[in-house]
């Protein structure tokens, strides 16, 4: 409307200008006619009066058009300013009506990306932003639906592994049981038959280990891996698995030693599960190290917690292998795995178990010089974040080991 004012102003200005020019032209025509009469000597007094009159008239016209032009210019100017202001207001209103929904969309995208799949935006604003909002909501809905499907699949997978593990256990019990039955009468078997049965038993035990490991992982994934902690003295926690492994390491001429720092605080752990972790670490050291190697177990720590470490002087690992060592089905060098009976799941499970205790596990290795696996467990009263303490533990552990040795 205000812009209309400017347009009206400009139109009026043009009309006035036209009128002014028409009047001026007529005035000149009258004056020229008067001057012609004057030069011809026809009534010179009257002609002079007409010329003067016309000059005054044009002056008046000029004054008039000057004032009118100023007024019109003012009108046009005001119209233009008002128009521009209106346009600016309209534009900023337009921007605001686009901006608010857009800002909400940006914020909602952030929430969605952060995993809040319930995120939806309010549909509003211009039709373009509204349809953007609708599209966003549809996308969020689709993401949510797919996440739901994926969770359902994960649950089905976990259930499947648990059921499969159960169903496989009965036939495995029979295979192992009857093979053991045969071995009870080993003296009645030929050496070749006895070896055959031994192979059946070895592989059955391997299958059982694999089944147990898969079951643990499925439990872990399903959030059903649980621990039953009791307060335990660190020495007994270490000594038991070491004793268990002694016959195996001795059969390979490997030296298995332990050093437990005095005065360690008791820990609140699931004895069987930490035993499982230590047996896993010791079994790895035993299997990957050549005959004659040394395996050393230490227990150190401070008031905050306890660090258990299994070190060996075996082949060690390359850096790229070390990076993936706690991942599933990651195993040592292929050349070595021929002789290794592990499932490739032990360290992944150990990591889950240690973390379930609020602890941490870490590995370090120098290829050709050996490996060290460290397990940090918080002390009874300590509930602090585990990872921050691992580094702090290293020094204390090394120190206490030197003392123990």
């Amino acid at each position, binding site marked *: 409307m205000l812009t209309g004012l400017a347009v009206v102003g400009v139109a009026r200005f043009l009309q006035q200008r036209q009128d002014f020019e028409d009047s001026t032209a007529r005035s000149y025509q009258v004056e020229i006619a008067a001057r012609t009469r004057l030069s011809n000597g026809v009534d010179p007094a009257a002609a002079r009066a007409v010329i003067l009159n016309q000059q005054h008239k044009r002056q008046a016209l000029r004054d008039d058009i000057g004032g009118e032009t100023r007024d019109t210019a003012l009108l046009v100017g005001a119209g233009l300013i008002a128009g521009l202001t209106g346009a600016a207001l309209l534009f900023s209103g337009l921007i605001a009506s686009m901006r608010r929904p857009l800002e909400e969309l940006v914020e909602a995208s952030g929430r969605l990306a952060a995993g809040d799949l319930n995120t939806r935006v309010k549909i509003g604003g211009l039709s373009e932003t509204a349809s953007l909002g609708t599209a966003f909501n549809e996308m969020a809905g689709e993401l949510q639906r797919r996440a739901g499907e994926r969770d359902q699949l994960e649950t089905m997978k976990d259930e499947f592994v648990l059921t499969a593990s*159960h169903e496989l256990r009965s036939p495995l*019990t029979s295979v192992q*049981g009857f093979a053991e*039955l045969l071995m009870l009468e080993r003296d009645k078997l030929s050496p070749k038959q006895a070896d055959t049965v031994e192979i059946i038993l070895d592989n*059955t035990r391997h299958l059982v280990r694999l089944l147990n490991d898969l079951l643990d992982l499925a439990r872990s994934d399903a959030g059903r891996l649980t621990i039953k902690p009791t307060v335990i003295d660190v020495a007994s926690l270490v000594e038991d698995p070491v004793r268990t492994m002694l016959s195996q390491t001795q059969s390979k001429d490997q030296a298995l030693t332990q050093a437990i720092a005095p005065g360690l605080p008791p820990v609140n752990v699931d004895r069987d599960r930490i035993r499982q972790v230590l047996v896993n670490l010791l079994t790895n050291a035993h299997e990957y190290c050549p005959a004659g190697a040394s395996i050393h177990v230490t227990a150190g720590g401070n008031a905050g917690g306890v660090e258990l470490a299994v070190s060996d002087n075996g082949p060690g690992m390359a850096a790229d292998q070390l990076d993936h060592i706690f991942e599933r089905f990651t195993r040592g060098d292929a050349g070595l795995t021929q002789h290794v009976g592990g499932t490739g799941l032990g360290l992944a499970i150990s990591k889950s178990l240690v973390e379930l205790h609020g602890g941490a596990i870490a590995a370090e290795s120098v290829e050709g010089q050996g490996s060290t696996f460290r397990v940090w467990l918080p002390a009874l009263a300590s509930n602090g974040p585990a990872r921050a303490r691992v580094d702090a533990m290293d020094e204390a552990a090394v120190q206490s080991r030197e003392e123990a040795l």
Partner: protein
Amino acid sequence: MSTRVLIADDSETILLLLRTRLEMEGYEVITAADGVEVIEAMQRTSEPKPEILLLDAMMPRKSGIDALRELRAEGVDTPVLIVSAHQDEMDAGAATDVEVSGYITKPIDFDQLFSRIAELTA
């Protein structure tokens, strides 16, 4: 007189394995294919009662846990070892509300089984 052991499992192969190993150890063995047969065996008066029950946790018709719950409700205090595939099954079996002498997991560690039976029937 040798100790009588009742074993219950829905797998005939497992029953054969358990019977063979237990008989080799000098036990007298009675078998049941499910919880219903366990209850029947415990109600029979024609023969002496078993001194220990070895029940599979999961069996069709009636599970070992359910059979045990019924027996305990009737006042039977015979020691019972529950055989189960794995820890989850024991937890899921809600065996916490009924008195169990111990658990044996599959595959069966027979040395462990024999020592548990010997302890419970001493």
